[in-house]
């Protein structure tokens, strides 16, 4: 039989083991609670990030055209106007007709690189070189993003012509650049066929001072379709690498500014201007 002392020690060991077991169980419970908490926090953050990304990402919004409305629309129109204010326009050309340097901008309104270039790089160049009368910018059509491949070649070309002619028709009222800027600001996922007739008319309606009825009539002008086709033929013949392709022409010659790379800073443009001036 165990002595009294041994019995005491056994009881103590059993108590310690019990306490250790309870402590380890409590720790496990706490760990699982923290694990659940971490998952809950992560799920909340992911959902918020996805919602923020989708709402800024150009997915379809409430309105069937997906165009900006209300206060946001007014802010957008006024920001576009502040870039183009008081700069002469004629057709698809922005700037003084007597400017010594011409920058031809081959673009596709659905092209995301053109969006980045037009909204992030072009405004400061326009303020510095176009507003001062030194350079004029001529927009020319080249199907890239719209002809990406989701639709048949014929269908893609139809979409492309529809949107480019819509913008060119605004140019007949000297508002091509307002149209193009508003399009780029509200651009959706390329080659999804979103630029429907109602989308294009919606943009026209956003432009202050544009006579939408006249614009609708001008869209049927065959000379605009001819110009879009001529631009594309030129781009193919010149073997332009993609959009935006920028060609600077001045008294000292002609230079392809970007050779396939996206122009991300205004300095690339001003260097080209200096080279041909």
């Amino acid at each position, binding site marked *: 039989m165990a002595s009294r002392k041994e019995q005491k020690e056994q009881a103590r060991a059993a108590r310690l083991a019990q306490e250790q077991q309870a402590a380890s169980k409590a*720790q496990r419970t*706490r*760990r699982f609670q*923290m*694990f659940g*908490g*971490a*998952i809950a*926090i*992560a*799920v909340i*953050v*992911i959902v918020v*990030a*996805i919602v*923020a*990304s989708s709402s*800024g*990402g*150009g*997915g379809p919004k409430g309105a069937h055209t997906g165009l900006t409305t209300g206060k946001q629309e007014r802010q957008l129109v006024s920001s576009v106007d502040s870039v183009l204010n008081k700069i002469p326009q004629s057709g698809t050309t922005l700037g003084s007709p007597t400017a010594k340097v011409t920058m031809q901008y081959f673009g*596709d309104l659905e*092209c*995301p*690189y053109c*969006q*980045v270039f037009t909204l992030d790089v072009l405004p400061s160049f326009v303020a510095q070189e176009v507003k001062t009368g030194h350079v004029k910018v001529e927009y020319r059509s080249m199907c*890239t*993003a719209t002809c*990406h491949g*989701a639709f048949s070649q014929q269908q893609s070309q139809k979409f492309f012509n529809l949107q480019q002619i819509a913008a060119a028709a605004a140019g007949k009222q000297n508002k091509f650049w307002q149209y193009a800027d508003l399009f780029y600001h509200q*651009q959706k*996922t390329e*080659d999804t066929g979103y630029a429907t007739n109602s989308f294009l008319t919606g943009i026209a309606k956003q432009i202050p001072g544009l006579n939408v009825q006249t614009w609708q009539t001008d869209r049927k002008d065959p000379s605009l379709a001819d110009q879009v086709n001529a631009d594309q033929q030129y781009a193919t013949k010149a073997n*332009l*690498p*993609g*959009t935006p392709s920028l060609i600077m022409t001045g008294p000292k010659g002609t230079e392809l500014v970007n050779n*396939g*790379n*996206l122009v*991300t*800073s205004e300095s690339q443009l001003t260097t080209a201007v200096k080279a041909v001036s």
Partner: protein
Amino acid sequence: MSATAGSAQRATRSRVRADPLLLWILIFTTIGFLDAAYLTYVHYYGLGSLLCIGASHGHSSCVTVQSSPWSKIDGVPVALLGLIGYVGLFVSYFVTARINGELGRAMGFCIALIGFGFSAYLTYRELFSIHAICEWCVGSAICMTFLVVLTAIRFLRGEPATT
């Protein structure tokens, strides 16, 4: 080098040696960090320099993804958010080692899970909305996938037995 800094380095080295899981976590975090740092650099200093396979419109498929509307959240590039996430993971390892092991491990798992979830969403967008794949983004997504598994195991396992 001071004696304190030297002993801290020795402690870190022995911790890594004693815990291979931590070693793999540090490896994937470093790869992901460098990947996100490169994407952030390219975002701010020129898309033209993005090295990537595949092309559309005369541009690499990475440029297509990087200039898509999903490449930013409220004007903040997702590459930068990824970079911040990897820095957060390094901070969580520091917290584990120096302040509170359980809290640091939970923090690491939480950050990795957020990174994994958002990477999965962005990969979905690449495949079904942008129709282009950026290898650098996929690289980061793979790192986050490994990290979420490893940090979950590490958290549920608790402190490794020391020798």
